[in-house]
Every structure is written in C-alpha cells, then in structure tokens.
C-alpha cells in the first residue's frame, strides 16, 4: 500500500498497484480456443456439404481427374443445368414443397397437443402410448409400402399429394410428439397456473404462455418434419406414379447416372432443405437461456 499525500488527490499522483492482466489474458485465450474449436467443428460438419456443391458445379472431366482439386477452379454449370431442365424436375419440386409444408402443419396440429398431454399429465398407458408411437417409426417402411399403396388405391387417393402428405405426417408424428413433449416438460407449470388464475382457460394458457416458451421445441420438430418429408423417397416412390416428389423422381435415376449427375441431383435436393433450416433457426435459438420469473 503506498502512502497517500494529504493534499487533494489526483489520480495521476496516486501510485496504483500494477494491473493484473492475467485474467484478461486467460479470458482472451479462452475465447480464442473457443473460436478455434468452433472453427474445427465447422470444418468437419460443413466441408462435405461444400464438396457436394463443388462437385455439382464441376465438369465431368474435373471429376475424373486425380488429384482432385479442393478449390472451385473449373466451374461448369453443364450438369446442373442438364439436370434442372430434365423433364419433371420443376413439377416434382413443387410437389415436394407442397407436401413438405402440408406435412409440417398436419404433424404439428395433431402432434403438439399429444406432446402436451404426455408432458403434463400422468395417466395409465402413457408409456404404452409412447411405445406405440415409436413402433411406427421403428418398423422399416419397406415392409409397409405395398399394403399402404393398396390402401390408397382402394380409397381412390393413389398418386395424389394428399396420400403422400398423410403418410409423411404419420412418419413424422412420433418425432413431433416426443420432442414437443420434452420441451413442454421444461416449461414451468407455475406460469400456466398463474395464467389460469388470471382468467385464461387451459387452451388460452397453452396458446399464449406455453407455446411461445416452447417455441424452440416446436421449431426443432418443424425442421425434422420438413426435412423428413423432403428427403423421404421410398413411400413417395411407391405411392405416386405421375405426380412424383423430387426424391422419387430423381433419386432412383441418380444411382444409375454418371457421377456428375449424382452430385447435381444431390445438390438440388439439398438446397430447399437448407433454406428451410435457415428460416427456422431463429425460432430454435429464440431465447438464449430463459430466466425464472
């Protein structure tokens, strides 16, 4: 401790103890390591997607070369444009979008209430119900394909968007129910009860209190549902003939196509799903760590 002069104190007169910069250095180092770790993970997760894009925009010759360049040295839109201009790609694209959105809405409408029920209530058969829902997801759909097709044929719904929507919604229902349930569980019950004390009905409390707080879970299941529907190929291929979804139209022909077309097709399939995740992500990261009220 330095001695203090009795005269009016100016900061410049006082001998300050040396600033300990060590914690700051530690913090900076930690932030740097954090960024480094994030970058490493990003490289691992993002690089294959970059490769798909790279290969989709390469000419056939470039794909046959070795060593393959990792940078887009020769950009060629030949395969992508051939792919996009082939018959049926645009209608299939539209079909897939319509089915994806319709599946999303249907699965949430049916699934979110069920998730709420599982989260809030304890009743006999809760486990059985969850297991029964999982059962449909756990059975490989290969086995269900022909009976489903016959079901829709007799119902006169074969080869329609409605048929595919229904099947996709049924496939997405278990995920929706379970994920929304897990998030509803974390929403404090007291808030709902408080809302009801203030005059809301149960439904209103659900809509105004629980849903906004559970938005990350709803967003997560929305993402899964759309992506599942977008990429689903087997049921769509068996249930449709002339009104195909994009995967049904494209994926079966891709496996026999030259490598360049496979990448072009893969890339075209990926883009809309990427866009959807981009849109939904803000709801997923809606609230960074809520606080108790």
């Amino acid at each position, binding site marked *: 401790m330095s001695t203090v002069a009795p005269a009016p104190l100016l900061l410049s007169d006082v001998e300050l103890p040396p600033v300990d910069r060590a914690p700051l250095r530690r913090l900076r180092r930690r932030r740097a390591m954090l960024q480094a770790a*994030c970058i490493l993970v*990003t490289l691992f*997760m*993002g690089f*294959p*997607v970059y490769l*798909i894009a790279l290969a989709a925009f390469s000419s056939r010759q470039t794909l046959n070369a*070795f*060593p393959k360049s990792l940078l887009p040295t020769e950009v060629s839109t030949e395969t992508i444009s051939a792919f996009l201009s082939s018959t049926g790609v645009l209608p299939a694209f539209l079909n897939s979008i319509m089915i994806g959105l319709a599946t999303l809405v249907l699965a949430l409408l049916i699934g979110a209430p*069920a998730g709420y029920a599982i989260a*809030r*209530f*304890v009743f006999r058969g809760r486990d059985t119900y*969850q*297991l*029964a*829902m*999982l059962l449909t997801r*756990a*059975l*490989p759909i*290969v*086995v269900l394909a*022909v*009976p*489903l097709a016959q*079901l829709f044929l007799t119902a006169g719904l074969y080869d329609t968007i409605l048929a595919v929507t*229904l099947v996709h919604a*049924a496939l997405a*229902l278990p995920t929706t129910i379970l*994920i929304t*349930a*897990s998030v509803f569980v*974390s*929403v*404090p*019950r*007291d808030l709902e*009860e408080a809302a009801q*004390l203030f005059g809301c009905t149960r439904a209103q409390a659900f809509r105004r209190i629980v849903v906004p707080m559970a938005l990350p879970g709803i967003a*997560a299941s929305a*993402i*899964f549902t759309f*992506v599942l529907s977008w*990429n689903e*190929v087997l049921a769509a291929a068996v249930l449709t003939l002339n009104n195909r979804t994009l995967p049904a139209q494209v*994926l079966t022909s*891709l*496996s026999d196509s030259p490598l360049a077309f496979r*990448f072009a097709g893969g890339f075209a399939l*990926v883009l809309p*799903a990427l866009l959807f*995740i*981009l849109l939904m*992500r803000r709801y*997923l990261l809606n*609230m960074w*760590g809520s*606080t*108790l009220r």
Partner: protein
Amino acid sequence: MSTDVGPPPAPVRAEPLRAPRRVPVPLLLLLPSAVFMALLFGWPLLSGIMEAFRGPDGFTTANWERMAGEPRFWEAVRNTLLLTAVVIPIQFTFAVAMALLLQAKPRGAGFYFYVWAVPLAISDLAAGLVWLAIFTDLGYLNSALVDIGIVERGAQWLNYQNPTSLFLTVVVAEVWRATSLVLIIVVAGMQVIPKDYDEAAQVFGATFWKRLWHVTLPLLRPSLQVALILRTILAFEAFAVAQALTGRNFPLLVGETYEWSVNLQNPAVASAVALVVLGMSMVVAVIYLRALRQPDSVRSGR
C-alpha cells in the same frame, strides 16, 4: 385485484387422472393422433407383421428359419449392434460438446449453429455419395493427402481386406450425418433451462465440470432421453451410407430387409427381418424410458 367476489377460485392444477365422469383431458388431446395413426397405419402394420408368418399353406415359421439360417443375417445383427454401440456415445458427447460451445456465445454462434445443423438436411443417399467421393481411392481425401505430399498414392480406405479401416470410415460418416439431430434436440432443450441454476452454482464456486455434471445434464434429461430414443431407433435403421461406402462387405439389418424384399423378391422374410429391427428398437426404447424416467411430479420450476 378482487373486490368482493366470494372465495377465490380453487387453483387449477394438473392432477393424476381421478374423476371418471368428465372426459379426461389427456385422452382428448391424444385422440387425434391415435385415431390418425390407427386409420392410416393400422392395417398396413398388421398386414406387414402377418406377412412374416405367411407361407403357401397359411401360418408358418418357415420364414424365420430361413432368416436365421442365413449367415449374413447374423453378421448384420452383429454389425448393426456394433455400429450403434460405437456411434451413439460418440454422437452424444460430440453433440453436447457442440451445444456447450454454442452456449458460451462465441462470435458467429448463429452461423456456426447453422452449419452444424446442415447435415440434417442431407438425405442418406447424398451423404453416402459424398463420403464415398471422399474416401474412394481417387477421392478427395487421397487427393488432399497427395497434394500435401504426405503420401504418393493415397491409402485404400475402403479396401475390404482392411475391415477396421472400413468400419472406421462408416463410423466417421455416420457421426457426421446424424449428430445434427441430437444437436438440435439438445439445443432446443437447453433453451428452456433457466440460466439461474447455472449462475447460482457459479456463484457458489462450482467448477465447469461440476456444473455440467450436476446442473446442466440433469436438467437436460428430457431432451437427452428423447434424443437417445430417436437416435437409437434411427441408428438401427441406418444403412444407405454404410452400403455406399462398403458395398456388400458390411451387412446391416435394414440393408438385408431391402435385399430380401427387392433382390430376392421374398417379402415374407423381409418382414421377418424388419420385425427383428422392430423388436430391438422396442426393447431399447423400453429400457430408455425406464432408465431415464422423469419423476412423476414434474418439475415445477421452483
């Protein structure tokens, strides 16, 4: 707020089902989903299950004998279990680590999260395609190695004579493909955890690992349970990527289902194999539901 309106209304709270006279609310909420699934999948499921027992003269277990008599089937069982047992712990550790990285709010967290979630959008077939392009003899990995100058010709990662390397490539590709699912569920779950618990623990001097183990993970339990169940069920059904990388050298159960159904035109045995997958998934789901059971009086945020 209240003036003179008599006794305050009884607090409405969720309670275990008691009164049989009203239509139970949970039943109302569950009804649409149950009816929907029953109508849509009810008959196909039954039909698919019965298919496994169908023979030329009616009910028979011959298909099951046929299935069990195939050495490839047992290889597929072993491979599926092995792959699942190796991949899932890696994925969960990886996903939780990624979520924690994000929670520390680095700059560009939004961008990072987006890139980490992107593999979810990629279909099985496209994922198999790109990882094959990476690992194949003249592929991107070998190209990079040759460019850097480490090796002259590049290693043969997908050589069937090297089963360990083959298995590892499948593990890497599967970890890449499916971790996003767990990540998104964990992040969604983390959003609703109140920060206060963690901050309180920090105030009391808990180290990072103690906080992680005693505060964060227990609060994440519902999300982890869901992610675990879903991921395991889906892991039992994974095969497109493995098949792209390994050809016929690494049989997997759902791959065998396709083989029986499509190439061998035998839907009955295909159903039998599918039922094995179903059985395994159900057993695992029951175990998870029991082991990670939520206490019945659900957390009320006090």
